[in-house]
């Protein structure tokens, strides 16, 4: 693999990456690259380290070792400067939406623009409104977040994540807490946004229907030592991935061999 040549057309690159808490690795041996415009899914069973990996990518958790390059900035060696640069290149939808409770939906979307202070008031408003229209929330723009359903809050959070025109959008567990229909609608929205804006989406999820709908490629985490099990398109992995990964994608629990019994 020509990793150096690849960096021109990759937006995320992880090499021998270990992530964890307090300098103690939880997840090791991560190697993948994400190309611009791709919808990339981070999957795996509960507790395998998906959230930990995502926290490292969105600069909330310093990586333990290896290389983690987001939008061209290395979070391992780049220090504070790289962290600031990465924050300017990403938008994040948190699992529960994490909308600011004291602001209306529109103000939530507008906030980052306001703080940047480069646009006029009417520019910001019309931008925020058109972002909200993209997620079908323009008519609810003056409501407080607490007056929205969980799914609407998540969509508003997506609009907020898109506000600063990020190169990469991170979505944390978009299906969590949504009914199957809303979840499917959300998936279609993600695909639509990815195709129409050409942005890269990184989605953490363990919902199989979502994975098969949205993922161009995915990485599956897991194993006893918590590492990367496989990388590829969901279809490829289901057909010819390692047994653990196929079991995950086919929703088959592992057979439990009885231990220590004579019978």
């Amino acid at each position, binding site marked *: 693999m020509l990793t150096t040549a690849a960096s021109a057309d990759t937006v995320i690159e992880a090499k021998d990456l270990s992530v964890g808490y307090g300098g103690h690795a939880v997840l090791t041996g991560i190697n993948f690259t994400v190309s611009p415009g791709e919808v990339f899914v981070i999957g795996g069973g509960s507790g395998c380290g998906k959230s930990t990996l995502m926290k490292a990518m969105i*600069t*909330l958790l310093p990586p333990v070792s290896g290389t983690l390059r987001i939008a061209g900035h290395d979070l391992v060696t780049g220090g504070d400067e790289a962290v600031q640069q990465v924050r300017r290149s990403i938008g994040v939808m948190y699992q529960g939406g994490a909308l600011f409770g004291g602001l209306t939906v529109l103000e939530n979307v507008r906030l980052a623009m306001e703080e940047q*202070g480069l646009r006029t008031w009417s520019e910001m408003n019309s931008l925020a409104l058109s972002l909200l229209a993209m997620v079908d929330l323009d008519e609810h723009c003056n409501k407080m977040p607490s007056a929205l359903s969980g799914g609407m809050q998540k969509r508003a959070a997506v609009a907020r994540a898109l506000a600063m025109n990020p190169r990469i959008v991170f979505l944390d567990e978009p299906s969590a807490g949504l009914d199957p229909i809303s979840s499917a609608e959300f998936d279609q929205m993600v695909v639509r946004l990815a195709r129409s804006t050409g942005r890269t989406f990184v989605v953490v999820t363990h919902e199989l229907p979502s994975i098969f709908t949205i993922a161009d490629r995915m990485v599956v985490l897991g194993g006893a030592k918590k590492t990367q099990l496989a990388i590829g398109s969901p279809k490829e992995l289901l057909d010819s991935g390692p047994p653990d990964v196929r079991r995950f994608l086919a929703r088959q629990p592992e057979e439990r061999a009885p231990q220590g019994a004579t019978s």
Partner: protein
Amino acid sequence: MPSDVQSPSGPTVIVLEGELQDARVREVWEDLVGRARSAGSGSVVVDATGLREVSGTGLLLLAELRRTVVWAGGTIEVRGLSADQASLVERAVGHKPPEPREQDSHFVSDVGETAFRMLDELADTVRFVGGAAIDLAYALRHPKSLRWRDLLRVMGQSGIDSMPVTCLLSGIVGFIIAYQMMPALDRYGAADQTPTIMGFAIIRELGPLITAIILAGRSGSAFAAEIGTMKVTEEVNALTTMGLNPERFLVTPRVLAVAITTPLLSVFASFAGVLGGWLPMVARDMSLELYLQGVRNSIDQVDFLQGVFKAFVFAIVIGGIGCRSGLQTQVGPGAVGASTTRAVVSGIVAIIILDGVLVALFHAIGI
């Protein structure tokens, strides 16, 4: 009845018959586990063919037997369970659980550890409050960077809304002090000196202190709860990844708001306290004019400003500690509550200690 047949060379056989419900499980638990243990690394057969009813705890007992034997290195066979029951019992041997951690608590090392933790905590708090004060100065020079809406909201809550309770409390404390002081002063025939004492005690000391204690209870706790909730719902993370500094965004407006309102509030509280001190004097036929005149004569501007300055410092410390507790909120259902409690307790402890330090300092520089 469970019985066991020990054949000289063969396995230990435990036969279970009848029912194995909760009451009976309790009776036979020790006995059966003991027998399983005494089999050592030999083999054990549990014959449950004759069991008619087994409760959940009954299955737990079977699981415990299995675990005991397997971990001793032996082998066990449980006969006569349904497939579902058997699969539950078989699960009992997965990973060996870690030994429960020993609670080693030595009084001396506990005290030492706590002291060190408190010192660390203190250093951190001082750093944070100092940082908040610096951010505050920055915000005052760059007023555009300030969240005005938050500022005004907190000023309303911490100032106007707490005015009645602060004044009421301070008035009552003033009344109590004057009332308790009078017999002692009477002994020296100095009851007419009450206004002097009230001026000193209330304006230099109790007015600011009472205001600060109420501030800790109302605003310090509110800051911790608000910011703590934002931490739990990942709103603080959202600010961070949006490139907005949570400290500047959440802490500065709150600390600035209380730094503005508390000195004012303290002036009102002091006045209410002084007035409260007049009430017992009514019985002595001291007119309000005369009383206030006495208070006026006892203190000068420096005393007054000293009280205002104290209130200002207390406000920054309590606001800073409240916000810091909020930002340090951990995950879990009790986390926000814990942060709130910590904000109030450390806030009150901090201002009382600080008050002592300030008194000594003012004395040293002679004001």
